[in-house]
């Protein structure tokens, strides 16, 4: 009497959507939203690095020279 082959495959090993996953999802999404915003805001408030300030000064000088030579298309 070998009925051991009959062992049913354990289909419901794990419920992919356990109760409370919707709430977790909501909490995660709120978390993602605030993390993203605070990351971005922290970048926004960083001082502009010297190399960019210098670049702008350089660009200004070039534009002024151009303008002085009457190359500006304004």
């Amino acid at each position, binding site marked *: 009497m070998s009925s051991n082959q009959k062992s049913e495959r354990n289909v419901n090993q794990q419920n992919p959507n356990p109760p409370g996953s919707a709430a977790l999802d909501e909490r995660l999404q709120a978390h*993602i939203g605030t993390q*993203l915003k605070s990351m971005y805001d922290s970048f926004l408030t960083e001082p502009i690095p010297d190399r*960019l300030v210098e670049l702008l000064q350089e660009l200004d000088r070039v534009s002024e020279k151009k303008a002085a030579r009457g190359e500006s298309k304004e």
Partner: protein
Amino acid sequence: MNPRKELLEHIPNLRAFAMSLCGSADRADDLVQEALVKAWSNLDSFEVGTNMRAWLFTILRNAFYSELRKRRREVEDADGAMAAKLATHPAQSGHMDFKDFRVALDKLPPDQREALVLIGASGMSYDEAAEICDCAVGTVKSRVNRARQRLAEILALESVAEFGPDGTSQPIVSSPTTTRSVA
């Protein structure tokens, strides 16, 4: 307003966008620099009164993608290196949560990361984001959704990993025998 002056005012935003896209301050500043030079030399083609921020974001974004194409091979194995680099500098971002988020964000495909940052942080509208990314509004929406979903998966996995059990312990946990207790 003088467009040149206006351009200056957008630098913090441009930088924040660049930093969000590429995760490295050096690369971000290279991108901002490139975008500024391009914008500066094309100021004539900018229509005064139109959306300068979107215009600048478009220039920066295009610079980002051309750089990405150039160094695609490097970028492919940079994910791990970037994560390791960030892990050794937790002070950079202040708190741990933030660092985890950054690492997760960097795992997203660039088009999804870009859409999420534009909509979720930069304050751009869907229309503006679509214009910047040169795609349909619906595409922006689906990229944002996929980005949020993927981030949730990554962050949820990380919180599960703290408590185990994960995939490797699964075979041990699930017992193969369902003994029939026949009385």
